[in-house]
């Protein structure tokens, strides 16, 4: 498999572990009688699973196994592929840090709010980079 696919799949495994670790933390609340703010932690849990684990695993496999774009550029643009990897990951990590902080101590003008907006923009760009790079590889035969 190509290097970018390896990066996507290994990274997806890390997010898988982190998501389940967060799940354990959420489950531990009842046992040790502490409470995490649900609005701060639940979205991180869902997005580590859906955006980190499943989506990155899919993107890695799509980049690897979808029909070739052209003989000289079988996976279309390597730059767009790497751009999607970097943008999605920086965006997701920024989100995981800034979303709980924003829920607990953020205000509309705080640094956490600005980072959250940045996280939204980076993830969106990463998603679009993937869609654009993959679109031309969906070929009928």
């Amino acid at each position: 498999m190509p290097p970018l696919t390896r990066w996507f799949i290994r990274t997806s495994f890390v997010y898988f572990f982190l998501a389940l670790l967060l799940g354990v933390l959420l489950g531990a609340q009842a046992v040790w009688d502490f409470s995490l703010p649900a609005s701060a932690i639940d979205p991180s849990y869902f997005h580590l699973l859906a955006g980190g684990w499943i989506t990155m695993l899919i993107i890695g496999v799509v980049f690897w196994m979808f029909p070739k774009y052209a003989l000289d550029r079988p996976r279309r643009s390597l730059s767009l592929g790497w751009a999607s990897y970097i943008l999605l990951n920086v965006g997701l990590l920024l989100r995981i840090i800034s979303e709980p902080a924003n829920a607990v101590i953020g205000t509309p003008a705080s640094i956490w709010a600005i980072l959250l907006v940045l996280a939204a923009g980076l993830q969106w760009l990463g998603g679009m980079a993937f869609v654009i790079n993959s679109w031309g590889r969906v070929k009928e035969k």
Partner: protein
Amino acid sequence: MPRLSAWFVRTSLIYLAIGFTLGAFLLANKGLRLYPQAWTLLPAHIEMLLMGWFVQLAIGVAFWILPRLSGAQPRGNERLTRFAFWLINIGIGMVVIDAFVSAPGLLLAARLVELVGVLVFILVAWKRVKSFSSK
């Protein structure tokens, strides 16, 4: 990939793009707190990414790569699978519309349409879950 897989996969990419756009708007709004009513879009965001993106990509790839049957229709009944494509997408569209205009019973109808669509896909794909060497 076969034409029907291309339909499913292209549609899933469109839903990914729209679902990500809604998600980015919701996340940015969480920081900026400009539109409190933006949260009504959350069910549409979830539907587009779970059913629109994940489910349709999986169905499209399954229709493409599952072992083929011997006979005239190696990928099973294509007409029925096309019917499943339309049912699933009509269902997704109805769930998304329900997020904007709350109509009594619309969500239930949408889920029923999706259920039938998924059932049709399962019934057609069932026989293709086999060893590559078996008939």
